[in-house]
């Protein structure tokens, strides 16, 4: 019995870092998420931002990080509802993101504090918003430290 408990506990421990690094894309993403959002940037898993942050993003699409990303009213409602439904719930990720940027949240900054400024500027990375440049399985929602390849240029 003790052995089984120990085994279960170690399994849990071994699994938890991977769990924290997993932000799976919900299976019910509306087609408009790919068409309207992921045409310019990666389809960020909704769990990367809190409910309030998504509301802020979705109510200011005509001025979206320097570009006009406006959508029609029906699409906006559809996307907002889905994003809010799947927003971050765990305490750790639930802060309202400064400037509505995932990359300005305290957890993002903490997780990336060893990445030097010149690395972010490499041509194949360009921006901290380009998750897939280093997190090779980012599109699948996998951000584990075991799945990172930082490009040299």
């Amino acid at each position, binding site marked *: 019995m003790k052995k089984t408990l120990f085994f279960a506990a170690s399994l849990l421990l071994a699994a938890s870092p991977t769990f924290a690094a997993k932000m799976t894309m919900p299976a019910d993403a509306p087609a408009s998420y790919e068409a309207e959002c992921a045409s310019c*940037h990666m389809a960020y898993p909704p769990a990367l931002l809190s409910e309030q942050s998504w509301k802020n993003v979705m109510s200011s699409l005509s001025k979206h990080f320097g570009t006009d990303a406006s959508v029609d009213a029906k699409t906006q409602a559809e996307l907002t509802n889905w994003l809010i439904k799947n927003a971050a719930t765990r305490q750790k990720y639930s802060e309202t993101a400064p400037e509505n940027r995932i990359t300005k949240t305290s957890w993002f900054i903490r997780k990336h504090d060893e990445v030097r400024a010149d690395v972010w500027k490499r041509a194949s990375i360009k921006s901290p918003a380009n998750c897939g440049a280093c997190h090779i399985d980012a599109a699948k929602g996998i951000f584990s430290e075991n799945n990172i390849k930082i490009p040299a240029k």
Partner: protein
Amino acid sequence: MLVKRWAICILVGLSFSAMAATPQDLLKSYEAQSGKASPVRGEQFFNAKHGKEWSCASCHENPPNHDTKHIVTGKVIKPLAPSANPARFTDEAKAEKWFKRNCNDVLGRDCTAQEKADVLSWLMTVK
């Protein structure tokens, strides 16, 4: 009942074919709202900055006949020229949506029908 179903099928089919467009259709419609398109003017417009940070070519490159990268996010953008990407300019609502967004980014205003006609006519010549 059967006849009714057939009628519905035909009607649905007709409305779909009315939605699908070709780059030529869109060009005609922009020309009808302005004047004759000029591919030369279109290419200049595409390459030039218009008082803001980016030109069309900042993200789509010239010639826009290959996969390019969004200047900020690095996300791959499929070719804009219909010769390299037959899906381009076949859906009027989609074309209008992107003109609205991207003209705002590049010019800080909507593009005129003449500007759209010029750019589209040039894109249709890109091999």
